[in-house]
């Protein structure tokens, strides 16, 4: 059964329960001067993607990359993107291997998540209807008529400590 499209992955409550009474077990590690880079778990990566709507999509033709900002929606461990007819769509038809990166910042760190996988255009009417019901918002006025979906083969994320002068004050 599909989960709520914007809900957290269903594995998290189970893991929290399994962690028992250890209060520290669920606190995310915080990078600092000694350990400036922390690798994120898959669940953390998905949580971050679910809370983000702007990413950059990399495609590659003849081993030459292109990179486009896109609005996306992470749901059910997949990535949904709406796009207009254009070079991006042509590139994805030639080579369906893509990478989507999203990032953001907190007070003292930045994070970045990269999803690699294969992309396909949604063509079945039922799939398109389902996609239209998800709240995939777009920022820009260009007309996007096509839905594509990334099926991930790998997801990796990192949280990196900010230098003092780039930390935000609370």
């Amino acid at each position: 059964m599909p989960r709520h499209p914007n809900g957290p992955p269903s594995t998290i409550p189970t893991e929290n329960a399994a962690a028992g009474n250890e209060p520290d077990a669920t606190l995310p590690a915080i990078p600092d001067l000694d350990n400036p880079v922390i690798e994120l778990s898959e669940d953390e990566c998905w949580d971050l993607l679910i809370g983000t709507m702007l990413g950059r999509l990399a495609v590659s033709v003849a081993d030459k990359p292109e990179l486009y900002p896109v609005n996306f929606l992470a749901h059910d461990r997949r990535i949904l993107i709406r796009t207009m007819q254009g070079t991006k769509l042509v590139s994805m038809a030639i080579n369906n291997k893509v990478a989507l990166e999203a990032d953001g910042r907190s007070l003292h760190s930045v994070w970045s998540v990269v999803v690699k996988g294969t992309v396909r255009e949604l063509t079945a009417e039922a799939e398109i209807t389902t996609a239209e019901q998800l709240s995939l918002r777009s920022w820009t006025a260009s007309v996007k008529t096509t839905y594509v979906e990334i099926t991930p083969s790998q997801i990796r994320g990192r949280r990196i400590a900010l230098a003092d002068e780039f930390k935000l004050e609370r």
Partner: protein
Amino acid sequence: MSEDLRMPDAGHPTLRLGPEECWELLAGTTLGRLAVSYRNEPDVIPVNFWAAEKSILLHGSEHVRDIVRRARHQVVLEADGRSGSSVWSVMAKGMLRELTGPDEIAAAERRQLKPWTLTRRVLYLELEPSELTGRRIAVGPEIND
């Protein structure tokens, strides 16, 4: 300076930017994303960059080094931003070159670049784009005919 800034609107939601405007936008930004392709599989990393005099300088971590060393072909650096009622995106494509000469490394050091993160930097990379393209897109509801 560039001419009056043309802005996209409902009738023309997407505008192509000229090279001068692309360089101005890059010069005002230090966060971008670098895409490389290895065996036809793209990869992306966020990077700080500094654009000046038609060249883009990166100060890379080990993570950046490991990823770019695999790229045999051109890479693309993308930067974007939002201003008022539009968003812009600039793509700079070309070959990355690692700075190896003591003089050019010293010149890069003198610029006192300030990366955002505490990751240790291990190499300077220069991108002199062979292709520079940019677009400005209107923000708002999609215009359907």
